């Protein structure tokens, strides 16, 4: 089990101490050309989470590879690059450029940014095109706001993805307290934070059943308990996003909280908790023994009831 940051929620160059706490650092999405991003206002808080409409601000792949990549690599943290674009060719271009660099350990394909007007073509085509230009591990980052997430996950798998990142933000809107106009200049934005937690759990739970791909679970993780639940739903790694904004020490804190949660729940380690929420139960000794302990209790309750 690794703890990562969610893409776009940490700049390793302005906060290297935070990046060093991670098992892998995921960059903000890189596109072929530089992007300033959307006009302000770009963020808003709601009662259940936050909205952002940054709009994939990034230096473009040329400047990223020439200037940013060498400096990020100096941190000594395994590096995942989030790859974005507006066509199959865009994704393949960025993936080829970053995929040929030794500093890069994996690529995450951002197939689900809610804050740009141009949506990528279908998941299968993008993943297959990128698979053709790099042998680095490929994670497909999907949104839960689709009619058939399992279908998309299977498409990513059949096109050659090595894993899934679940989930990206879902679209939300906040209105100004006084004017009743949208707070964000763009109108709607991507909702993250606590509101996304059950959405992420459901997505991870479904994709764990639908594909054998390893899953990086993310969405509102703020405590060790949140991380444990994503593991139980089927994630093998966990990423922290919005919680980093209020607490740059969140990664270290969540890591130690998770250890306590795992041991309280009777798991020898995090990997043993993966998939524990599923009926089929675990395949490890720890989980089997756990089921053996619990089963008689449940039966007893049923018989009594």
């Amino acid at each position, binding site marked *: 089990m690794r703890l990562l940051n969610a893409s776009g929620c940490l*700049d390793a160059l302005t906060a290297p101490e935070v990046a060093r706490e991670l098992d892998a650092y995921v960059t903000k999405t890189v596109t072929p050309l530089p992007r300033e*991003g959307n*006009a302000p206002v770009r963020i808003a808080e709601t009662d259940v989470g936050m909205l952002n409409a940054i709009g994939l601000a990034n230096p473009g792949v040329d400047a990223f590879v020439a200037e940013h990549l060498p400096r990020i690599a100096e941190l000594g943290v395994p590096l995942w690059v989030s790859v974005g674009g507006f066509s199959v060719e865009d994704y393949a271009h960025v993936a080829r450029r970053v995929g040929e660099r030794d500093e890069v350990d994996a690529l995450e394909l951002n197939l689900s940014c809610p804050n740009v007007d141009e949506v990528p073509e279908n998941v299968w085509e993008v993943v297959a095109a990128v698979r053709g230009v790099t042998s680095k591990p490929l994670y497909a980052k999907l949104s839960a706001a689709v009619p058939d997430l399992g279908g998309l996950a299977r498409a990513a798998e059949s096109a050659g993805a090595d894993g899934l990142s679940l989930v990206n933000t879902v679209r939300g809107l906040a209105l100004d307290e006084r004017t009743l106009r949208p707070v964000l200049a763009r109108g709607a934005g991507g909702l993250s934070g606590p509101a996304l937690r059950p959405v992420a759990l459901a997505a991870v739970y479904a994709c764990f059943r639908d594909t054998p791909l390893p899953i990086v679970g993310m969405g509102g993780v703020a405590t060790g308990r949140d991380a444990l639940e994503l593991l139980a739903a089927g994630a093998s790694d966990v990423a922290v996003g919005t919680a980093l*904004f209020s607490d*740059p020490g969140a990664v270290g804190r969540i890591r130690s909280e998770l250890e306590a949660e795992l041991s309280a729940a009777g798991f020898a380690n995090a990997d043993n908790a993966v998939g524990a929420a599923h009926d089929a139960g675990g395949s490890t000794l720890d989980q089997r023994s756990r089921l053996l302990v619990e089963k008689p209790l449940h039966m007893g309750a049923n018989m009594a009831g």
Partner: protein
Amino acid sequence: MPKRERRRVVGSEQVGPYTLLRLDRGGLDAGLPGQFFMLEAPGRLLPRPMSVCLAEPSELAFLIDPIGPGTRALCALEPGERIGVLGPLGNGFRLDVERPLLVGGGIGVAPFPYLSQRLGGPPAILGFRSAWHAEAAALVPNAEVVLEPTYVTEVLPPGHDVLACGPEPMLQAVRRLTPHAQLAWEAPMACGYGACYGCAVEIDGELRRLCVEGPVLAAA
């Protein structure tokens, strides 16, 4: 980068419509005037950025305008309660100026008491919406107050090194008159340390992350 710490509220007082929130300073570095802290707003997801208003040996104070749920939660804090604080963050005012003049509007006066102290009490021109709002001017020594419909830019004397903080239209007007002014900008922020990209402001057609490039920027 500084570490997030929990600090105790030691006082909270009304200054016109604003609240002066005093926190136990402990070992916190106050930073330079114009730098800011992210203050945990109880019950809210995100902390709120506040520039240091007063830096005493035993406490740091922040002047807060209750304009939304987060700032209202901060203004409702009572002595003895604790909140998480992260700072000092960002870039403050340069203090190597020969003829300083502080120019502020509304809640933009927040960093001036500390700035004034560090500059030895220079003159200040402060604009407010009403006499009630102008009660905050009492925190700033040597202050001349103007009330709407008069604007600070109408009474700005020439020949000074201007250090300004206030609403964006005021800052834009100040920089037109004094091209070398230092301006403290404001934007909503989620993190305060460069992670969220939320605090970008457009200055001369370029988007800049205020928390790492500002909040104090040279006008020219």
